């Protein structure tokens, strides 16, 4: 903006930013401290203190001993993989047809897909469950992944990406006698790899964090995903904030690392997501 020297405005700006930073990051720092506090620490001390007096990793070990966290993580990863493959494949194919090909009914199909975006999932979730049940997929990981295989927003992303490929590339291929399928695989798909990555990343985060739908679909503990498992852990360890903190840290670590690695795609995805128009 237009501020270069130290002004009152700048002081206010940085004060607010630092306070916000503390408010957003502080809770995690406190949870890490809690998770590392041992039996010699009073976790309820007034005033509270941050650095553990008897640091230990025992809380983490206890969480892993009492709750099959790795099993939940594995289940979640299976759901996430199905969801990533499905979303990337289906929205890339649909996006190609909608953004690149000319055919009867294209605009109708596009409108129908857009309509799905405004339907709140809670309004149809019971019927979705009945459908899953009627094809005997209740209580399976595939059942969790299936309704989420297509996201309208992903199709918009892919459609826009395909639209922005220069026509000349394809025209050259057409001259060489390439058919639609060859053009799709050899010319167009390589051009939209970035957007495909964005779609995959959002599919991963969505699957990793989903709660209500798995809660409805899964009844058997062996098919719990991480969020349902953690909710159960919270109920079990309600007496010991150290264990809840350790569980929270364990489940946050992968997604935060994932975010750190792919953050440029996150921002890219939000910017492209039809929001800019």
């Amino acid at each position, binding site marked *: 903006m237009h501020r270069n020297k130290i002004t009152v405005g700048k002081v206010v700006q940085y004060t607010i930013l630092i306070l916000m930073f503390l408010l957003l990051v502080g809770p995690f720092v406190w949870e890490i401290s809690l998770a590392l506090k041992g039996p010699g620490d009073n976790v309820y001390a007034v005033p509270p203190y941050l650095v553990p007096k008897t640091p230990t990793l025992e809380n983490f070990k206890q969480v892993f001993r009492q709750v099959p966290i790795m099993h939940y993580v594995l289940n979640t990863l299976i759901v996430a993989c199905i969801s990533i493959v499905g979303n990337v494949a289906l929205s890339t194919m*649909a996006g190609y047809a909608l953004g690149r090909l000319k055919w009867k009914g294209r605009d109708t199909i596009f409108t129908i897909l857009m309509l799905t975006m405004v339907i709140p999932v809670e309004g149809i979730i019971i019927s979705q469950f009945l459908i899953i049940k009627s094809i005997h997929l209740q209580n399976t990981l595939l059942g969790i992944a299936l309704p989420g295989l297509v996201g309208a927003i992903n199709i918009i992303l892919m459609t826009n990406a395909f639209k922005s490929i220069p026509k000349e590339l394809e025209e050259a291929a057409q001259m060489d006698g390439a058919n639609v399928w060859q053009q799709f695989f050899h010319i167009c798909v390589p051009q939209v790899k970035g957007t495909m990555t964005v779609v995959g990343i959002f599919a991963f985060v969505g699957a990793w964090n989903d709660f209500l739908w798995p809660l409805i679909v899964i009844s058997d503990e062996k098919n719990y995903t991480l969020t349902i498992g953690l909710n159960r852990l919270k109920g079990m360890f309600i007496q010991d904030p150290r264990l809840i903190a350790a569980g929270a840290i364990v489940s946050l670590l992968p997604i935060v690392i994932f975010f750190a690695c792919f953050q440029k795609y996150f921002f890219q995805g939000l910017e492209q997501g039809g929001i800019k128009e």
Partner: protein
Amino acid sequence: MSATPDGGPSHQESRPARVHRSLGTTLAPYLFVLPAMCIVVVFVFIAALNTFRLAFTDSTLLKPGKFVGLQNFVELFHDEYFLTALLNSTLYVVCVVPFMVILPLILANLVAGNSRVMGFFRTSFYTPVVMSAVVVGMIWSNLLDPKGLVNSLLESLHISKEPIPFLSDRWLILFSSMFVTIWLGLGYYMVIYLTALANIDDSLYEAAELDGAGPIRQFVSVTMPGVRSTMLLILMLSTIAAFRVFNEVYVLTNSTAGPGAQDITMSMLIQREGTGIMARTGYASAISLVVLVIVGAMLILQSVVERWVGGDNA
């Protein structure tokens, strides 16, 4: 309408080289959209129609049920939980949405710019967005516990003598959940605003500065009008999200919906009535239909307002 490369050339040349498209080429678009359409038709359209049908039946998980007319809806308006849920979800909208529309815009203004420091703030404000509401709910239940960090900080600063019952008082639970919702959503809406802010012409700020407008004045008379259609978008997104709230309240109340289920929300009610072995799928569908109608009404209202306000000025 923009001509696609596939159809484009054949329009321009009177006799294109390849007049006879193979069957594979003609069918290709349909084959490309077929898998996505199958999922959407089954899990959105059939599900929505089925919700509509079930709402007028007395079906349960175990029996298909028969048509009962408006009976479910009559029952709804005598159902204490439904009225409480409607109140709570509406309150959620009323309290959360203003913060979601204004706070992220202020934040976006403060973190705009290309410097490294601002990039760092942007990333750290966005990070909570990728976290699950369940885990964040766990963290905040820890913090808001009667003996948790927030209470011990308040006590050691002599702001409060007694622990504040954030997680056991009917109203405080709701407000705590709202706080967590705002905390989780700030970064997401901030990024949306950042894109809109980048489109505001810098000369508008320069002109305002020449006119002697301070930062607050510039915010009100340049920034806010400049992003008004984005504000409207976020108003709509956050309204619908707030009305559908589930995770935060569910986790903060340990799935109990608070004392006497007084903190139940619409989505929690659907989950309660529509799942489990005793599920009343017909009744739950009636509640779902109410949610669908309310959200639909919000969307229509939003599009009317949008037409009236117009787009962001470039």
